[in-house]
């Protein structure tokens, strides 16, 4: 399963159960549209950190990283790249 599909699946399952995953637009602003509220954002951050093994120090720096499926996927890819470089 690709990162994007996995992220979509989590969001639909937890925040938009009535939306089929393939109908969730990857650039939809999850925060401004009300799909993910403040407590939902904390849950999303916790899940991304745990699922993709990203340290909280990186993960909680800006909500912009979590505004859409595309943004989250890009954030995960960046974090993984940085982690590779650090090694």
């Amino acid at each position, binding site marked *: 399963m690709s990162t994007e599909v996995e992220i979509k699946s989590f969001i639909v399952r937890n925040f938009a159960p009535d939306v089929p995953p393939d109908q969730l637009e990857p650039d939809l602003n999850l925060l401004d549209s009300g799909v993910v509220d403040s407590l939902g954002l*904390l849950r999303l951050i916790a899940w991304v950190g745990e699922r993709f093994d990203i*340290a909280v120090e990186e993960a909680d720096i800006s909500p*912009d990283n979590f505004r859409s499926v595309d943004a989250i996927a890009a954030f995960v890819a960046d974090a993984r790249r940085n982690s590779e470089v650090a090694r």
Partner: protein
Amino acid sequence: MRWNDDQQALHDAITELGDLLSENRAERDAAAVFPRANWDRVRATGLLGLPFPDRWGGLDQDLLTTMYVLEGLGHSCRDSGLSFSVSTHMVSVGVPLLRFGSAALKERYLPKVCDGSAIGAHAITEPDNGSDIMGMRTTAVRDGDEYVLTGGKTFVSNAPVADLFVVYARTGKAGSPNAITAFLVERDTPGLSVGTPIGKMGLRTSPFSEVSLDGCRVPATNRIGGEGAGFLVLDHVMKWEILCSFIINVGEMQHRLERCVEYATTREQFGQPIGSYQSVSNRIVDMKIAVETSRKWLYDTADKLQRGENVTTDIAIAKLTASEGNVSSALAAVQIFGGYGYTTEYGIEQGLRDAVGGTIYSGTSDVQRQRIARMLGI
């Protein structure tokens, strides 16, 4: 927890001040006066700079050590309002600056935070929005190199004596988690005005008041973190606030427990020490369980936070455990001391009044339960 000699020395430096900081506690509590002279005594110990790097005058200690020293303050100082103001000062301005502030902001303000020459406060709660942070109405509108802040805050701890405020304001769509932004605002900024102290039930030597923002122009360079990052700045600050202010409560609970044990073994009724009655000893056992459980949750959560783990659920459990444990411990102490516990002279009733606030500030007990439920996917 095991502490090394350096940590113990820091802890002892503040506990040795306890008697001095506690003098005339009842009178100050009755008058609801901020103890400026004692604030200066705390400043002289360096405690206010504990978790901040030495390049800005801090003591460069980690979170766990900071908490250990604050627990010592709670154990030795009977002026809970002063202890609360100390914690509020440390976390409200210094913690967000250190983590999210620009290099220039850190250079300018952290030295004043570390030495306590500028007292810090954070302005979050609004008259119509307490727990509902996302509903805040105070706005910040960008105008060139400045933001214009308009709105009103209330229950701002330290405000009547504060020099620096971290103000949270809305910069985006209402309700969106990326609609809040944090700003550092100096007290004498035109448009910012501080109300008179609001009377309250406990923590009376830690003054709080309203703060009004009427077209208050703040340089964009005073923004803490990115535009819209305020909710996560606040979430970070709240973790520190809960860990630092409730470990002080743990120190207070430990001191209260020791007083109750001493009283229960020396006070006699019907020819026996009252501790020989299970109704009394059971209360004391529950106090012991409350303080140990609170201590474990707070230090374990801090340890996880320091290791970079997500503590969103843990922090809510730790806050609930410590704040509600403190109230039940304080109420038990009043019962154990009986009539004396009800008098202001013994300070036991003050402990109860001070404890109640802990179930409200930093997110009410109801909100903490809501957080835990959401993290469980409910």
